[in-house]
């Protein structure tokens, strides 16, 4: 233990991953609720890839970097929530393990004009048994669909929430996060109050 670890004991940081296709509004979503302007950095594949980027059939250690944006919310003096947007293309899904490890859950944003764009994210979070919901971002210029129809098109389980959202609106974004957290909580309670490691 470090010398001043006592003062750190109660400090907790958690993260929620914001996913979905390219241009679906992830940065807007993060910016609507983050206490700071969304921050940008790069993730490099060298520390995450074991040569799995098969599409280009090149060895693992190349200099591919992807942009990553994130926001921060101080929930109280000792609890900090980070929102991380996944890189926008499924060819970068190999990076997600690194970004997603320990996540509370994930929000998948959906654009009804390009429903198929969110399939890689749904597959990923289902495969990794990570709690998620689908939030249909209400763009002004696209037709509205019944949420039941969208659910059917996505083929997600009944316990996966499919809800509307406006990624520009703080209250709407907040509702999406609360809905996700309710889902995370329900899963934790269903696990007979077993504690899960972050």
């Amino acid at each position, binding site marked *: 233990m*470090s*010398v*001043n*670890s006592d003062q*750190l004991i109660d*400090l*907790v*940081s*958690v*993260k929620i991953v914001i996913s979905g296709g390219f241009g679906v509004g992830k940065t807007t979503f993060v910016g609507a*609720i983050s206490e700071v302007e969304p*921050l*940008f*950095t*790069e*993730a*490099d594949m*060298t*520390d*995450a890839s074991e040569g799995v980027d098969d599409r*280009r059939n*090149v*060895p693992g*250690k*190349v*200099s*591919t*970097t992807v942009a*990553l944006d*994130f926001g*921060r*919310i101080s*929930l*109280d003096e000792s*609890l*900090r*929530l*980070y929102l*991380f947007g996944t890189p926008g293309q499924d060819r970068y899904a190999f990076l997600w393990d*690194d*970004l997603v*490890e*320990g996540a*509370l859950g994930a929000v998948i944003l959906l654009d009804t004009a390009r429903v198929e764009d969110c399939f890689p994210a749904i597959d990923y979070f289902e495969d990794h048994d990570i709690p998620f919901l689908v939030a249909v971002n209400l763009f002004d210029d696209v037709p509205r669909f019944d949420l039941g129809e969208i659910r059917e098109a996505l083929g997600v389980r009944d316990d996966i929430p499919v809800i509307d959202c406006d990624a520009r609106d*703080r209250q709407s974004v*907040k509702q999406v*996060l*609360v809905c996700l*957290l*309710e889902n*995370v*909580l329900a899963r*934790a*309670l269903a696990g007979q*109050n077993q*504690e*899960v*490691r*972050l």
Partner: protein
Amino acid sequence: MIADRHPLEPDDPETTPVIRPFLLTGGRTRPAREGLRIETLIQARTLIPQGIRFEARRIATLCQRPTSVAEISAAVGVPIGVARILVADLVEDGVVTAVEPGTLSVSLIERIRDRVREL
């Protein structure tokens, strides 16, 4: 860091230059310790020690207040993987400490939910 690479050019391992950010790490691409997540909070254990320079000093300065690996990456202007290596070195040297992830208990999830609702 990658501004000099044309964004539309496909990466060609034959022509892509050496990853310059990793010069900061002496060419290492693995951190000295595992377990540093992007949201892991890093806090300085001491005032900024004499004799540390450049990125290490910047990180030690940032972490006078708890700062996540991702925020360090953004502030120092290096990719996440490089930030991890630099931070891991500083942990090994006793300059900073990494806050261990807690246990995701029901009560913690409830607390997070309630706080988000209050935003």
